[in-house]
Structure formats: C-alpha cells, structure tokens
C-alpha cells in the first residue's frame, strides 16, 4: 500500500523484483544504481552471503524529486531467489505496491521460472489481493544468451494475463529502464 503523507507532501511506493535464483534481480538494481543521477539515488544496500548471493534483500531508494509539489520516492527491493527462502520472500513482499517478475530466458530455467511465478501468485493472494489485477510487469532477462527461449514460448508459459513484458540484458543494460518505467507508471496509476 503506497503512503501519501499530506503534511510532508511525500509519496512513497514499494517495488519488489521477484524471480528464481540467478535470474538477474540484483543485477537490475546495480544497473539502475549505476545509471541514475546522483541526486536521485540513495545507497544500494545489500544483505548478501559471502558469495554475493542475496540473503535477505537488496534495497535501493530512488528520490524522483518534486512532482506537482509532492516529493516522490520509490523504494526498490529484490528477494533472495533460491527455493529454500520462500519465507524471506514473503517478508520482503510485505506492503508491496508493484512487482517486476524477472524470468531467466535460458531454456533450462523455464521450469524454475514457472514455479517461482506460481509461488508469487500464492503469496500475493495470501495478502488478500487478486493476482491478475496486481500491478506487475514481466522482464525476460538474458536475451543475449544463445540458449534463450523464443519470446512467444515464454509468453505461453509465463504471461497468461498479458502483463506488460520487456526483453532485457540486465548485465549490459538494455531493457532495464524500460522495465522500471513500465512498473513505475502502473504503480503511479494505482495510487
């Protein structure tokens, strides 16, 4: 649930990057952190293991400045992707306004993508929300890899509700901002 503080004239929205392990959620945040103007971003905070896998979450606050007199802030989070950490993902999803589901385009990862999306649906429904109406965009990541599945096939398995979807290579940047723009506009539209 977004927060509008009328006295401080502030709006806060929470966006969570969700998806299976190693699909590129943290990489998305790192790219955004590296590219947005200094005045817009806060520190990128990571709670990771020694091997740099996300243990709890990454957190990147973005301050979009004043729009029509309201200071608008987006808080971007990732979740740990490994199957084992479902409880942690539930914790990070608390109070979420919009989700980016990052899917790994590699052929061998299709089943993990499908399972992770099913788990997300279950966790959103547990919050009392309808999954198909929930603000969500898909990102098909790692499109540059030779074993990437064709987009129509990924649509067939991952996009039954025709959510907006974006092709990306988070490591080198293409598609990262299109995805962020996509979810930001949906979240703002739902305020």
């Amino acid at each position, binding site marked *: 649930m977004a927060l509008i503080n*009328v006295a401080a004239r502030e*709006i806060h929205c929470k966006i969570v990057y969700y998806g299976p392990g190693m699909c590129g959620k943290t990489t998305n945040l790192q790219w955004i952190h590296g590219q947005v103007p200094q005045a817009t971003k806060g520190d990128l905070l990571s709670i990771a293991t020694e091997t740099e896998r996300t243990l709890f979450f990454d957190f990147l606050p973005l301050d*979009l*400045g004043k729009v029509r007199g309201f200071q608008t802030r987006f808080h971007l989070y990732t979740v740990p992707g490994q199957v084992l950490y479902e*409880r942690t993902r539930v914790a990070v999803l*608390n109070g979420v306004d919009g989700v980016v589901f990052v899917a790994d385009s590699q052929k061998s990862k299709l089943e993990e993508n499908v399972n992770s999306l099913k788990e997300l649906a279950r966790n959103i429904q547990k919050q*009392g929300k309808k999954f198909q109406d929930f*603000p969500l965009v898909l990102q098909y990541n790692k499109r540059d890899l030779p074993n990437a599945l064709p987009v129509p096939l990924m649509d067939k398995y991952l996009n039954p509700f025709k959510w907006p979807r974006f092709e990306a290579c988070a490591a080198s940047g293409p598609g990262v901002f299109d995805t962020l723009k996509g979810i930001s506009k949906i979240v*703002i539209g739902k305020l």
Partner: protein
Amino acid sequence: MALDPQLTSLIVPPDETTRIEDVLNRLVEETGGNHALLLDKSGQVIACHGDANRQDTTALGALIAGTFASSREVAKLLREKDFKMLFQQGVRENLFIALIADQWILTIIFNKETHIGLVKVLIKKASEELSAILQRVRQSRRVRDDVLGASFRTSMEDTIDLLFRD
C-alpha cells in the same frame, strides 16, 4: 480509483501527522530515548523525532521493517500469529520495536541511561494512541485526486521518462 481497498494508498492528513509527531515527541521525552520512528510495514518512514543528525532513516526503515517481517515468519513457524514486540540490544544503543494494528511499526532507539521496563510501558501507551490515529486514517477515505490533483499522473509519467534512461 482501484476498487480493491488493498491497492489504494494510505493517505495521512496533516492534522493526523501532527498528532503522530506529538506522540513520538512525548515518547522520546518521557523515556529519555534518542530517536523514535514510525514506519509503515512496507518500510517507509511516516514520521520520526529525536536526533536531528540521523541521515540514515530511510535505510533504517527498510531494515527494521525487514527484521519485523522476518520475525513474523519465524512466529508462524512457531505457530504464533506474530511477535508484537522486538528488542535488540547493542553496546551503546538499543532498539525496541512494536507492531501497531498490523500496519505500522513503532521503533524507539535508546541508550543504557533508559530503563527497558519504562520503554515497555510507554511504548504500549504510545501504541494505543497511534492505533487510534491509524483507525481514523483508514476511515478517512480521501480521494486521491483531491490530494494530488488530476494532472499528477501525467506529470509523474514525464518525470519517470526523464529520469529512468540510460
């Protein structure tokens, strides 16, 4: 407007923000604590009072809400509904965290000069006052366009296009 109340925003009107700040102010004064924060369960800071030099409240908010959400999952594994309060003890500073009506998280930071028992009693009193405020905020149902103006969305989209690019 979205029909699902879960998807609409929580709009805190100015008079309620003043009351929230009064509650935090009193909590810090009466406990002799250093800093009090009121967070939304999503980790966003609604109000804070105390040490003016604290620059890290945004990160603190995200981490404390994360701690609380994580403890709730631990509670479920123990077949508890949730833990209403959490205490974290440091060498110099301590944290006491309380959940308010499943929506807000009240945190007070204090040092060894303050007795934990006093914090427990006063945070309970503050929680009850904040719970009443939250109930009013939930019921006030202000319409977004009255607060933000009808053209907010278009202006916001322009800003997003301007900032989020390679």
